[in-house]
């Protein structure tokens, strides 16, 4: 039995987001999967070439339209609906992009959606976290009908390169709504690694005390080649911008090294870091819940410990 899987590419117009390569690995877990990646863009050529190079992909489809410059779910979903007919599964990443878009497609299809797929057991059986990761649920869809899914990117490695899938243009002519308009996006420019794909992440909590306090972490992160994250409490307090938030409602990440500095470890935060290979906790409260999940715990004053670590790292 073969399954025809459509993956909606996440990109910024020029670069394919790493989340798409993780969706490919997830899709490969579906027995007999024939994988197609679809790129919606104004000019899809650059992104399509990157998608075609992912190993395991059979075909790349491009939907080009002047209205596709920003990923507006209300604009993209009807175009994706127009090409969805031959596919058994329609997948996207469980990033804010994919979560926003895929459920709109599911609504148009009247199809069920499995959110945050963390494992595939068969073409119809999936595992996903519920209750902020405090339970793992196995769900089963019927074999007939389409299934929409979002892929929990922290659960899958990125597919390798080296592929050479054919690239085709899809002729889609549907009327697109004008009721939703992009105005702006504000993102802090940073030379640090991307939080969602970084191998090392240092995160700070409310104990940092101020945006000034976070500079300690930026400085150490730059020595270690790490990305910087934050707890919800630190973001709420205005010490760090929202895109740095790690946890149930922020980013779910799986770095090789995660250092939690002055973070107590609410379950909603722990949800975001469960797949980290090694977790280090630095906190002055020896009873903080973060120590229950930490591989290495250090009780003490972060304002002394962080500069000391930086000094020792610098000294080699």
């Amino acid at each position, binding site marked *: 039995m073969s399954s025809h899987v459509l993956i909606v590419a996440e990109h910024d117009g020029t670069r394919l987001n790493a989340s798409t390569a993780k969706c490919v690995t997830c899709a490969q877990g579906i027995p007999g999967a024939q994988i197609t990646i679809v790129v919606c863009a104004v000019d899809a050529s650059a992104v399509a070439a990157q998608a075609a190079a992912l190993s395991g992909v059979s075909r790349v489809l491009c939907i080009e339209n002047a209205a596709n410059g920003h990923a507006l779910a209300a604009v993209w979903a009807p175009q994706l609906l127009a090409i969805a007919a031959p596919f058994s599964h329609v997948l996207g990443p469980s990033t804010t992009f994919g979560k926003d878009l895929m459920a709109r497609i599911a609504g148009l299809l009247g199809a069920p959606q499995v959110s945050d797929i963390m494992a595939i057991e068969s073409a119809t059986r999936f595992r996903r976290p519920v209750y902020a990761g405090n339970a*793992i649920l196995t769900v089963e*869809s019927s074999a007939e009908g389409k299934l929409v899914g979002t892929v929990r990117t922290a659960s899958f490695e990125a597919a390798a390169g080296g592929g050479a899938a054919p690239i085709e243009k899809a002729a889609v002519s549907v009327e697109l709504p004008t009721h939703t308009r992009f105005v702006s996006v504000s993102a802090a420019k940073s030379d640090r690694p991307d939080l969602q794909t970084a191998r090392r992440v240092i995160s700070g909590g409310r104990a940092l005390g101020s945006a000034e306090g976070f500079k300690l972490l930026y400085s150490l992160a730059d020595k270690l080649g790490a990305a910087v994250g934050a707890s919800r409490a630190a973001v709420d307090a205005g010490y760090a911008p*929202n895109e740095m938030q790690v946890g149930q409602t922020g980013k779910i990440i799986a770095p090789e090294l995660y250092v939690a500095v002055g973070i107590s470890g609410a379950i909603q935060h722990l949800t975001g870091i469960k797949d980290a290979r090694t977790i280090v906790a630095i906190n002055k409260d020896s009873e903080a819940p973060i120590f229950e999940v930490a591989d290495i715990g250090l009780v003490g004053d972060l304002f002394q410990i962080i500069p000391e670590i930086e000094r020792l790292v610098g000294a080699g």
Partner: protein
Amino acid sequence: MKRILVGIKRVVDYNVRIRVKPDGSGVVTDGVKMSINPFDEIALEEALRIKERGVVEEVIVATVGPADCQQQLRTALAMGADRALHVQADGVVEPLIAARALLKLIEREQPLLVILGKQAIDDDNGQTGQVLAALWNRPQATYASKIELSAGTARVTREVDAGLETLEVDLPAVITTDLRLNEPRYVKLPDIMKAKKKPLDTLTLSALGVEQRQQLKLVRFEPPPQRQKGIRVQDAAELLAALKKKGVL
């Protein structure tokens, strides 16, 4: 009359430590505190603030679920909603069913705006708002951290992975809330008394013409794998030595 429809869900309270039932059929809810889903509480708070600014005249709160949901609807009325709609449904209500029921309520009430939480903290599906917007063929603005209304449009700032994105949508539209949109008010005792007199209408899915067909079977709930107990170190030097030993530095 200009009105806002707010959808809420009854969920296990945010602070409850979740335990999976030994037979894997679900999580323990007997004797467990239930509350309005926190994101939905933010949705209601935002609707109330818009009403207090005089932009709309009425806030309706609605839910789809079993009889017990009326407790949460009463809490919502105590917070300040003007009336409540309870669509009675036992068993699993999938996002598509909830959205179809809400669409029927939209057709009856003709709201200017529908505000929902971005996800429920029990099933963590995060779908209902987008599915509803698709069925309704209206704009969606998910993960809102700021909403500015003007004649016929809403300007919504969204928390996205890249940072903050601003969209302009024509009304009516569906907006789903993120945590930093507002801080919901506390309910005062006199408001709880007043809420008892506010209208709460009960409907059924079948009366609305919505079939409660479950498309995803819930096969099994399991507790998540536990991480192995870690070690404690005394200072920065010991920490770095331990990291080098693990091969991560």
